[in-house]
């Protein structure tokens, strides 16, 4: 069974179709790339899957369960985490607090959260992840005091915090310097090796081509191609989508 199955997903904003009947499936353990020119509907796809936007039509199935139109907190609790193209953090909270918030709602009840039962275990996990990402020494800094690259890493760390089954990365490399790109690619590959499933939207083609074994191409809200990096690079439809005709 596919981990994530998107069937015929449609999203309209008034008259504008941002997604028209997009279908795709993600297998457990996969590292799938989603590419396409600006405005092709990639981020809208993520928003519809994670409940940030309600789709106008179609279905999203996660581990066989229909989660179409569920609110973002429910989708997250089911095991789908994501990062954002424009980094979204809690700026006036510390790095550690940002990480802890990302874990605390995954399990337990509203009342049990008053009692801070899991705090020690989760703090340990947060520190371990911050260590892995190389920003452990910053745990007491406010998120707003971090550099852009460090914020990017924190955003990534928060997505890992709940130990999700599926992680959606929205342009993880945007604005990141070459050293950090290598660094992040290493992290993604290492985590993928440990069994984490990723879907990555990325504009840096070199990164997508070397990271992903399968790539889906969107253009103007439609899925126009799918294949291995080599197949995608030689597909004339893809070049037209990017360069025009």
């Amino acid at each position, binding site marked *: 069974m596919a981990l994530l199955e998107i069937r015929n997903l449609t999203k309209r904003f008034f008259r504008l179709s941002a997604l028209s009947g997009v279908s795709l499936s993600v297998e457990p353990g996969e590292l799938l790339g989603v590419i396409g020119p600006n405005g092709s509907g990639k981020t809208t796809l993520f928003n519809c899957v994670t409940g*940030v936007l309600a789709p106008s039509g179609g279905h999203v199935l996660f581990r066989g369960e229909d989660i179409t139109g569920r609110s973002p907190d429910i989708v997250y609790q089911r095991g789908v985490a994501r990062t954002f193209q424009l980094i*979204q*953090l*809690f*700026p006036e*909270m510390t790095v550690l607090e940002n990480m802890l918030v*990302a874990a*605390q709602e995954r399990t337990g009840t509203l009342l049990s959260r008053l009692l801070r039962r899991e*705090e020690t275990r989760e703090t340990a996990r947060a520190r371990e992840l911050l260590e892995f990402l190389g920003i452990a020494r910053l745990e007491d800094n406010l998120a707003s005091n971090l550099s852009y690259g460090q914020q990017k890493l924190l955003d990534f760390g928060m997505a890992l915090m709940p130990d999700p089954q599926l992680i959606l990365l929205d342009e993880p490399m945007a604005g990141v310097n070459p050293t950090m790109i290598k660094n992040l690619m290493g992290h993604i590959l290492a985590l993928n090796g440990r069994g984490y499933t990723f879907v990555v939207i990325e504009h840096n083609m070199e990164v997508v081509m070397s990271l992903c074994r399968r790539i889906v191409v969107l253009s103007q809200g439609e899925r126009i191609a799918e294949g291995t990096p080599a197949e995608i690079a030689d597909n004339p439809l893809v070049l037209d989508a990017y360069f025009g005709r």
Partner: protein
Amino acid sequence: MARGLWPLVAALALGLLLPLVLDQYKLYVLSLTLVYVILAIGLNLTLGYAGQISLCHAAFMAFGSYAVAILGQHGVPFEAGLVLGVVLAFGWGLVLGFPALQVKHHYLAMVTLGFNIIVFLVLRNWESLTGGSFGISSVARPAWGPFSFKSDRAFYYYILAWAAIVVASAYWILHSRWGRAFRAIRENEMRAEVVGVSLRNYKLMAFAIGAAYAGTGGALFAPLLGYIDPGAFTLDRSIQFLMMVVLGGLGRFEGPLIGALVVTVLPEVLRGSEGLYLIIYALSVILMMLFMPKGLVGLWDLAWRFSKSATSPSASSASPR
């Protein structure tokens, strides 16, 4: 932790000792300040931590005041009235939380403002229950069997005990995962929801708990003054609470304590200047907002950073909240 708690302990010690040296009037002002501290802590939770604007704090307060006043007339013990007032305020807080799920910012301000006006009108017109615009006089102070809190000093300590309970419980809630979820909603609502924070649950709770504290403060307010009328629970009063929270420092734990103290005591201090005192008061509020947008707690931060940088060279890490 050390920094978070020791000012509170110092404040408690001061609260215990001050009545020994204060005259009756100053004791009354201090009692009133404590009542307002309780109320402001509630609003700070709703607005300062969870970021939900509320302009009906005085209406929540009214549930507490009228519950003890009305039940007191029928000989029901004060504490029972207080519990009823808190439950009513909590319930109406939940109800008011629902609009907060739909609307934000100034729209929410309008909704809560409207609620305050409705409550005021009900209090004024439901004469058989509330005594209408005359209100209810001789509200009884609590008594435990032969031991009564009738004297001003005894009642002051009674209020202080409740204030300590409120401060401790608020400290506990705000330092639990709830406090973190509240702040996450304030900082970035969309991101909070995407890391699993249920906006519905936490916004409702932020409103209801804030209202419950208002009910507690209201219950203590009625017997402190001895009488109540609808005029005590108008929008003006709600705005006064807003001012305490903002002046003290939104979303800072010590904020309401400082804010309530300033807003209550400053007019008393300025009273000597006769007709000018309102103008001076308003001007100082404007100046404080201009130069200390983060509230008076900001001054405390500066002092803390200064003393820290004097002892250790690296003070770049964030201040704990």
